């Protein structure tokens, strides 16, 4: 008997005669209402991320200011990132084509991405490797991540995000910069992922 058959047989024996249970979902499910921008902003800030609100024409200037303030000269820009948003930046845009090695990614000053969904209640941004986001390593290895979020992408809560996302895509949920609480439960920002997360909300 294979271990697969053995385990399944043990499970079936253990469950003989056990009644099933009803699942009631008496909690806030996906809502029709969009996520509150102010709440999203506040919750992202709670994680000690940097947040800016800008209007669409102001994005290019804000991107340029942020990169300059950071001193970022070479930044990875995934395919599909809107070109106008980069127009004012005084930095070299590095493409991931052909794919950069992990060492190459470690050598750039930062990464610019869009996102798939953002969650107001938890201050989370979700990347799904879609246009402007690239593969998962791009938003991981560089020490600085600048993410542009459109207000239409902001949903109210976790159930809304789950409903919008496609599970077949590789997903990364990001809530603030990388952090640890392993030393006396003191929160320290910045371990292996980007130590600085900056979020631009385009209104």
């Amino acid at each position, binding site marked *: 008997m294979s*271990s*697969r058959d*053995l*385990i*399944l047989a*043990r*499970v*079936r*024996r*253990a*469950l003989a005669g*056990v*009644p*099933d*249970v009803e*699942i*009631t*979902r*008496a*909690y*806030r*499910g996906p809502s029709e209402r969009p996520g509150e921008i102010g709440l999203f902003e506040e919750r992202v800030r709670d*994680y000690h991320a940097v947040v800016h609100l800008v209007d669409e024409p102001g994005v290019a200037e804000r991107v340029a200011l942020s990169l300059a303030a950071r001193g970022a000269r070479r930044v990875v820009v995934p395919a599909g990132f809107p070109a106008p948003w980069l127009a004012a930046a005084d930095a070299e845009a590095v493409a991931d084509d052909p794919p950069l090695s*992990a*060492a190459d990614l470690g050598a750039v000053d930062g990464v610019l991405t869009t996102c798939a969904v953002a*969650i107001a*209640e*938890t*201050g*989370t941004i979700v990347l799904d490797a879609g246009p402007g986001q690239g593969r*998962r390593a791009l938003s*991981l*290895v560089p020490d600085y991540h600048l993410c542009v979020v459109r207000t239409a992408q902001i949903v109210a809560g*976790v159930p809304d995000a*789950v*409903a919008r996302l496609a*599970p*077949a*895509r*590789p*997903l*990364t*949920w*990001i*809530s*603030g910069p*990388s*952090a*640890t*609480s*392993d*030393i*006396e*439960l*003191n929160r*320290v920002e*910045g*371990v*292996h*992922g980007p130590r600085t997360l900056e979020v631009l909300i385009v209104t």
Partner: protein
Amino acid sequence: MSVTFLGMPPTRPFPRNAARALRDSQLRFNLRKATRTIRARRASVVAEAPDWAGLREAGRAIKEHTLRNLDRYLVRLEEAVTAAGGHVHWAADAAEANRIVAGLVKATGETEVVKVKSMATQEIGLNEALLEHGITAYETDLAELIVQLGDDQPSHILVPAIHRNRAEIREIFAEHMAGWGRPAPEDLTDDPAALAEAARLHLRERFLKTKVAISGANFAIAETGTMVVLESEGNGRMCLTLPRTLISVVGIEKVLPTWRDLEVFLQLLPRSSTGERMNPYTSMWTGAAEGQEFHLVLLDNGRTGVLADEVGRQALRCIRCSACLNVCPVYERAGGHAYGSVYPGPIGAILTPQLRGMGSELDRSLPYASSLCGACYEVCPVAIDIPSVLVDLRSRARHPWPERAGMAAAGWVLERSGRLARLQRAAGRLRRLTPRRLPGPLAGWTDTRDLPEMPEESFREWWDRTDGGRR
């Protein structure tokens, strides 16, 4: 049947381990500070969710329904992962899981692997097993790194190095990092930020060059074949995305039926666990993501035995959040090592004896490592009634003979009201002779309790004499 292995061999019974831990004032200070901090954080983010009770009830029901249909969901998970280009392996026990993983690593030709913190791989003692095959496993979670470098044992599910303070961690880093790779900086201080930075530099190169990673998973979605890992530091993302081969060892109880079920558990787990609205990073992938080779090892290792137990099976709902450890007055004082298993605290006290059996003195003592105050049940995000399971397990553990003799005597006396009346009369007359402490093996009872004072007459005698107070 062989005894299920749980990461460490059963040692001395809990009371002796706890007594030793209680004498360590540094440990008590560290634990008290840490558990109090995290309790307050959890309480505040749980209070913020207006529908917490509804989420908890749904979490309980989804897990219970999943366990009730576990065979069906495991087969569906296997189909979905395979359809997405992954490979699924089944391991009946720890030895088989270790054999499978060692074989998979060997097939890549690599001798080094990076690891994401995982309870399942700790449970099966994977690192030690790999070492026997000439494969070195590097722990990458900061707390696991502290434990590994210090040649120590984890003492908490979420924060395995909770028993260490910053000064101890600095010493471990300064002394042992060099033996495992990049040494700690010369001028390393005990500032948590400096310690985290040292860990970042120590592991950076390893992440960028290692070709094989091993992880566990918090959830595995049967419907879609999606694996979910929650973490904070980014070491998980490093391991899950950069290496060419990824091997995930996952207990069979980690499966969830549908993608939608994540809307419940992605709220329950971070708030219960780290006390955050959301943990910094959650990775989700389905099968061979971005061209990676993916292997899923489904682990039984005693779980089907627990599933067969009518009362105890609810322990399989556990999502390893560790909220029950943080509120437990016994854990707060005794610490994790006293439980002699990778699963400490209240959940460990019901999981360990069920997985490992009650053959050892330690495992028989674990159901008693609780005051039954019920705080664990109250904070459990999937409503595991830990006190009830503890009581059920106590009834199965063989009690010490003085206790059994005492219970038998009490049973005999209480069986007939005449016997009770005669004993009460005798006790009333001999009340002045009642000792403060009981002799011989009964002294265990009066070591920590006062004997109640004997009244001159019993309530029944008083009632008869006064006709219920009317005379």
